[in-house]
């Protein structure tokens, strides 16, 4: 019970300070919208092809703009040596990790919640036909980004080049999760249900989340306490 309260306290203070300044959110959102616009020059916006690329396009946007949010996650703890105050408090490393991952998740989810309708309007797509499943798939893939992003944020927090290092390190590792999300999102936006052939991707996403969340929860304390 205390554990959950501590997780909530971490997530709460991260969300509160981000929503107050909206530094990362604004940057990330404008970046996302710009990429969405740029894509209209890459593919003919009225063609069939766009629908076939929709999943890939959207998750590229989320991966790129999400990094701006993930970069802020641990950077927020650097001024005033706040990270020391957190590590010295009696919360387990995994609670700190989960709290920050939840905050990152929520912030990226806000970006997604805005990008999906904008995408639908700009490219004239009816993307809501499989909405509940689409939300579930997005949640799973966003959690993959949040876990790896939070964990590698902790790994790179003391580095000078951390804002460059984080994407360099997490993009290659995220590929399986992003690939799965792209496949499924394209399918769902086209209005088709997840059939047996595509169920494998759902399993990839779930397995990815379980494995990397537990790995991070176990290792994060070692990373934080030098």
């Amino acid at each position, binding site marked *: 019970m205390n554990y959950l309260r501590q997780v*909530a306290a971490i997530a709460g203070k991260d969300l509160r300070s981000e929503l107050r300044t909206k530094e990362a959110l604004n940057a990330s959102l404008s970046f996302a919208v710009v990429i969405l616009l740029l894509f209209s020059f890459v593919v003919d916006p009225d063609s069939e092809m766009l629908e076939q690329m929709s999943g890939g396009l959207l998750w590229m946007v989320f991966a790129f703009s999400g990094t701006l949010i993930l970069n802020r996650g641990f950077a927020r703890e650097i001024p005033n040596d706040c990270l020391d105050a957190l590590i010295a408090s009696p919360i387990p490393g995994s609670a700190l990790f989960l709290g920050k991952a939840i905050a990152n998740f929520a912030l990226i989810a806000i970006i997604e919640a805005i990008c999906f309708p904008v995408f639908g309007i700009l490219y004239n797509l009816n993307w809501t036909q499989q909405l509940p499943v689409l939300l579930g798939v997005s949640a799973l893939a966003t959690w993959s980004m949040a876990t790896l992003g939070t964990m590698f944020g902790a790994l790179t927090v003391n580095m000078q080049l951390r804002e460059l290092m984080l994407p360099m390190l997490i993009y290659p590792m995220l590929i399986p999760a992003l690939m799965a999300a792209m496949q499924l999102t394209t399918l769902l936006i086209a209005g088709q249900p997840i059939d047996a052939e595509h169920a494998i991707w759902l399993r990839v996403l779930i397995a990815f989340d379980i494995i990397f969340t537990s790995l991070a929860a176990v290792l994060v304390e070692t990373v934080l306490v030098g």
Partner: protein
Amino acid sequence: MTALEAHGLWKYYGDFAALQQVSFEFAAGSCIALLGRNGAGKTTLLRILAGLSQTSEGQVRILGGNPRQPAIRARIGIIGHGIGVYDELSAEENLLTFARLYAIDHPAKAVDHWLERTDLDRVRRGLAREFSRGMRQRLAIARAFIHNPNFLILDEPFTSLDDRAIALLQGLLKDALAQGATVVLSTHQLKEALELASHVLLLNRGKLAFTGTRTADMLVDPGWVYRHYGEPTASASPANGESTAA
């Protein structure tokens, strides 16, 4: 009861030994002044005590346990170089966050109490970013004391504080000591520290140079302990120590 003990403590950064074979023991209720020049290992030692860093070899026990145990950390309060509060949160939100992290029983009540005690209750909804330097320092003090710690670790607490915050902190430390808490503080300002201190621990290049009770001599002449146990000054060093040819 022993509140703080270290046995054969080593800390390496790579192969650089920041602490070498440091051992000491202090009873509960002691106020230990940690002295030493820059680079002597004071901050390294305090970070280990605060559970922010792990020893390479040897053992530390605080209040009978490892400082990384959550139950032990819940009884430790720290003030480090940074103030450890969030600029984008209000005074109240900052304290409430830490009250929840320390899982204390009535967070809101404790926050009220400490806002009052540090004279910040009128600006409780103000963001820490907008505070003056002195207010930020008082907020940091409230953050460190919010869970009524009975072991306090303070790294250079008086260096950056203004007079009001110094008076507040000294008052709090005296109260805490009176209630049997143990205090470890590193300092350059020997005078302020030695008045509070019951014991002195001197580090010299990572090694323990002196440990013992604070004597009246030290109080009269704060430089005394350095002259007797610190590293020899350049003029006093033996001639053959300078063997490097020009």
